[in-house]
């Protein structure tokens, strides 16, 4: 791809909510093709950081440059509905699916930006609309097979168990065909078996589809296993950044985690 190995560059970002600083002057970068983890104790600002990267929150200071298209695009200045077409997709800590739609329609809804049919095409449902619906359905079915959710294809997602909903949400993010995938605690609240499945999916997405991944996760063993580099946040401040081995021996990080008990 592009010669610049960086896909996302977070520069001096600060975010506060009515005087309470959630993130203070944090900088880090994400390299093309890596798995980058963000860890930290509860309330450290991990989700807030991810929200800034996906254009969901606007930081008061700093910028976040996305370079996935060979340009320096400042995510903090782009309207939220244009983020997806840059190639950035995400999942949410508290699952944000379209609860009234089936699994299939949730994924199809994520093809929105890749479809060209107009309002009139949709109404008449012939020609372009019909062709597109079939083409994109084929694309979606591949994701459904990959995530092993074929059996719930037509089930309304609001009624699905938690683990499956997490999986459908991952599928919806994949349906955007992202270059950069932001995952907020994709394995939280899952049992061991579900966690293993999810880890396998994430590694597969990374290797087979070449998607760069930013991952928030509390399970240290898992983070150290699968990520290339780790950022550590504590009270909105970056206290560590490096390979899993660097992080394991970082005094501040050890202190932050032990001091918590």
């Amino acid at each position: 791809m592009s010669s610049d190995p960086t896909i996302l560059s977070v520069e001096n970002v600060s975010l506060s909510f009515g005087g309470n600083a959630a993130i203070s002057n944090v900088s880090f970068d994400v390299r093309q093709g890596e798995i980058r983890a963000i860890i930290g104790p509860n309330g450290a600002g991990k989700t807030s950081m991810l929200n800034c990267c996906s254009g969901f929150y606007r930081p008061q200071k700093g910028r976040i440059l996305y370079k996935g298209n060979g340009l320096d695009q400042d995510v903090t200045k782009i309207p939220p509905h244009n983020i997806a077409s840059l190639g950035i997709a995400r999942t949410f800590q508290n699952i944000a699916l379209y609860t009234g739609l089936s699994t299939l329609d949730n994924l199809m809804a994520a093809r929105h930006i890749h479809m060209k049919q107009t309002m009139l095409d949709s109404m008449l449902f012939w020609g372009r609309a019909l062709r597109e619906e079939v083409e994109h359905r084929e694309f979606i079915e591949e994701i459904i097979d990959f995530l092993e959710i074929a059996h719930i294809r037509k089930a309304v997602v609001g009624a699905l168990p938690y683990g499956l909903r997490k999986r459908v949400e991952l599928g919806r993010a994949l349906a955007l065909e992202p270059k950069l995938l932001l995952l907020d605690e994709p394995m939280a609240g899952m049992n061991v078996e579900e966690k293993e499945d999810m880890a396998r999916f994430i590694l597969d997405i990374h290797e087979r589809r070449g998607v760069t991944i930013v991952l928030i996760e509390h399970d240290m063993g898992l983070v150290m296993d699968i990520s290339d580099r780790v950022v550590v946040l504590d009270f909105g401040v970056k206290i560590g950044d490096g390979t899993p081995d660097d992080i394991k021996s970082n005094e501040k990080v050890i202190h932050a985690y032990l001091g918590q008990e």
Partner: protein
Amino acid sequence: MAVLRPAGDFDRSYQQDMSILRKPWHLLVTVLAIGVLYLTPFLNSAYITFTLNRIAYTVIALQGLNFLTGFTGQISLGQAGFMLVGGYASALVSTYWGLPIWLAIPFAALATGGVGLLFGLPSLRVKGFYLAMATLAAQFIIPWLTRQPFLADYLGGTKGFIDVPTATIFGVSLGEQSQFVYLSVTVMLIMTVLANNISRTRLGRAFVAIRDNDLAAELLGVNLFSYKLRAFFIAAVFAGVAGALRAHSQRAVGTELGYNLVESVLFLGMLVIGGLGTNLGPYLGGIFVILVSDFALWFGPRLAEIFPSNAAALQSSFRPIFFGMVLVLFLIFEPRGMAHRWTLIKAAWRLRPFAR
């Protein structure tokens, strides 16, 4: 919602899976049902044809409101007001430009769509209850405008209505209710096809995405404002068509004939009863409410005959009380609407004899 299908019932292509009439017998039943609709005038019943016309324009208005409220989740209290725009638009272009009905209806649709866009603009800033207030503004401003003296020559002013020319198609007059049925049923079927198509393609999914999770929808590339405006536009287009049909079937249009806030609220009620956000909802809710309210209208005077001492009270209050009770019972026992019950019945039928 079709989660379960019996073994052996599978599709050979995605296109077949997507289509509504998946099987030959689906098509057969549909053709038969449509045939019956077109034969109703031969029953020679004034009530049936008159009611069929009312059902047709009500269902169309509900389909439009369903896109705005049921699919996109934006409560609107202005659907009757938009119908009034459609009725007047169609009446005026027929009277002054001599447009035939098959041109007057699309014209009314687009004109009303434009007005709908205008009143949809507040959706950029406000949501939920506050947006409902903005649509309420439409419901007040539009009827008020039609009664203004400076427009009296065209809209009837304080008289509250204007006459609407008889519709003709291929030189055949549709002045009688029994003749008008052919037009209203045809238009209703066309609008039903359009509504079904919207609900199963890109546009419909974007609407539901906004309803179920607007913030996620935005991050997945749906431009909230633009799609809310589209929902307003489509709701108004359907209202415009419904209003045009109503004006030509009643041969008059204006605030004297209704189109008021009570109607707008009633439309919401019908939609809730039928099933918000379902394609069947507008049909079930519209037909059910119209028939129940007709029954109450007929039954009140009968009761008054039986209980002459309370005749006056029964004459005036039976209908609203009975009708109100039916609505309340419905909300208690079937809060998700008749369409939901229908899917349960279908599911149970597929699982027979294992489920009751």
